[in-house]
């Protein structure tokens, strides 16, 4: 025993202690407490009762209301992910093909918004696309539309704003892969007789897939749990899981139900991320093993 202890280097233990303590105490403990809370019951006049039951989960699964919100959240997240792929992947390629100083400049345009508060960026969309926003006013002034296009409080509105907010992550993810690519590979394809379209489809795209996959996992997870953007654009008319949790916690005060919703959201995000990851690994492992 003493020999074992003598052989055990205390340094790593001491070095990892501060971070370990903080994360253990202030991350794991609150999450465990939240898990416990989700099995409590609640009513306005009795408050949170110290029982352990599945009531909240039964309520969530048994109620079409919650199901609809979960489905809507998934739909919005999936569409936002698709949008970021359709916009982000080509743009990443275009950025990589640029020369100095344009590349640096437009990299700033593409990635810089990450440093700007989500609230500000979403506010921009509200100002731009509200029914008296810049776009609607311009379109109506031009006589192209008679009625303002509905954007606020719609799924499309939330989806587009989310895609805008999360695009940088997709671009980063695809660019990271692009940076590792051998530029000659594209030339090789041309030299072998393939045109631009074939080269893109058969050579560039397959190599980008791991980046697109990784980006999709990040974007989907963040879109599914996004709060600020759906709250501002969707309002109360278009609830997603995150805004529902917010309402349960801060308006209805049903913390146990809110906790159950939060844990379900967490679980879904994890399952989708891990599932996607597995899929990606099995698909790309041979290539990069």
């Amino acid at each position, binding site marked *: 025993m003493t020999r074992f202890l003598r052989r055990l280097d205390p340094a790593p233990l001491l070095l990892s202690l501060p971070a370990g303590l903080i994360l253990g105490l202030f991350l794991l403990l609150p999450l465990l407490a939240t898990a416990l809370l989700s099995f409590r019951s609640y009513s*306005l*006049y009795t408050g949170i009762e110290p029982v352990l039951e599945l009531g909240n989960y039964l309520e969530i699964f048994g109620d079409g209301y919650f199901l609809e919100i979960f489905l809507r959240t998934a739909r919005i997240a999936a569409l936002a992910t698709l949008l970021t792929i359709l916009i982000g992947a080509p743009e990443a390629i275009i950025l990589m093909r640029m020369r100095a100083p344009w590349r640096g400049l437009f990299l700033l345009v593409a990635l810089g918004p990450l440093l700007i508060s989500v609230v500000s960026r979403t506010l921009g969309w509200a100002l731009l696309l509200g*029914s008296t926003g810049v776009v609607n006013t311009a379109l109506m002034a031009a006589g192209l539309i008679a009625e*303002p296009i509905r954007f*606020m*409080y719609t799924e499309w509105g939330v989806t587009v704003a989310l895609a805008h907010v999360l695009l940088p992550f997709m671009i980063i993810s695809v660019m990271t892969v692009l940076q590792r690519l051998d530029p000659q590979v594209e030339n090789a394809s041309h030299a072998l007789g393939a045109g631009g379209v074939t080269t893109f489809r058969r050579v560039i795209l397959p190599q980008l897939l791991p980046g697109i996959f990784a980006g999709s996992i990040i974007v989907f997870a963040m879109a599914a749990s996004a709060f600020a953007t759906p709250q501002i654009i969707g309002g109360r*008319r278009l609830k997603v899981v995150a805004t529902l949790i917010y309402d349960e916690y*801060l*308006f209805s*005060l049903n913390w146990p139900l809110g906790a159950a919703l939060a844990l379900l959201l967490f679980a879904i995000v994890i399952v989708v991320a891990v599932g996607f990851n597995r899929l990606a690994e099995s698909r790309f492992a041979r290539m990069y093993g």
Partner: protein
Amino acid sequence: MKSIAALMASAGLASLSALPALAETIYIAGNGGSQEALLKSEIFPAFTEATGTEIVYSAGNSAAVLARLLAQQDNQQTDIAMMNTGPMSQAIELGLCRDLDISEHEANIHDFAKFDSGKAVGFGVVGLGIAYNTEAFEENGWPVPTSWTALEDDTFKGKMVFQPLNNTNGLLALIKIAEIKGGGVDNMDPGFEAMEASIAENVLSFEPSSARLAEMYQNGEVDISVWSSTQVKVLAEKGFPITLSYPEEGAMIISNDVCAVTTEAMKPEAVEFINFLISPEIQEVLSRNLGFGPTNKLAELTEAEAEGVPYGPEAVDKLQNVDWDVVNREREAWDRRWVREIER
């Protein structure tokens, strides 16, 4: 601001300002928007100048205020809560408010502003009806909404806001609709049915924030909503073509109430502030700026100022009240039903 300080001095509040300045801070939770703006720009500075007490205000609608009080119950950080009667009676029932000494003004306070428990007091009443954009109605040749049933008219599809059930405006309107359809607080089914069948279809957004609703009017996103006299007055005074129709089936009354919150260290300054708030002078300030019907009999308004304001017991009596005990008992169930069936 100066004038209020002068008024206070003359209103016998000199005794307050004579107290040793403790530079205590009190925390108030109440509605945002125009009420918050007025409190912060005029009333708080006057009180601070007079007493040395600093005030921190956090805004939220009544439901949010109640939620915050409950959430912080073990470690209460709010000294004063301002809410509508519904949430206020809930707060009292939940023991969130402590006994309130308003003996200074008690004799002059209208009965409708007093609580049986004596734990809260009204500081302004407003009427609830149907607000509409007069210009838009004229342009489109829409009929003036004289009945609550106008909300069911699909002419207004996508042009209407109905405030959600955790907002007193929405709650009272739903009760009224249930009543018209043959129900009432004891039978809300007709109300929910009408809501689901026709009204919800017309609704652009269940917007709880009245400030946000005011903007939606200004943006032209919305032309009709259930709204209160004070909110309409604030917007109309900005020159916006809006008016409030009191439907023929009767308009509803909403009372803005205030209570001193049960805290570990009960600050006397909290009670002082509440008394300050219901003093005639401040009551007049509230009426002039927000269109609150004064709850202090000594508050005097000119005829022009009283325009659209429920001023005096006669005007208030015309407005219909609800049995808050019943409402509060049922409210949780209604809320559930609301979010599931209507606001989804």
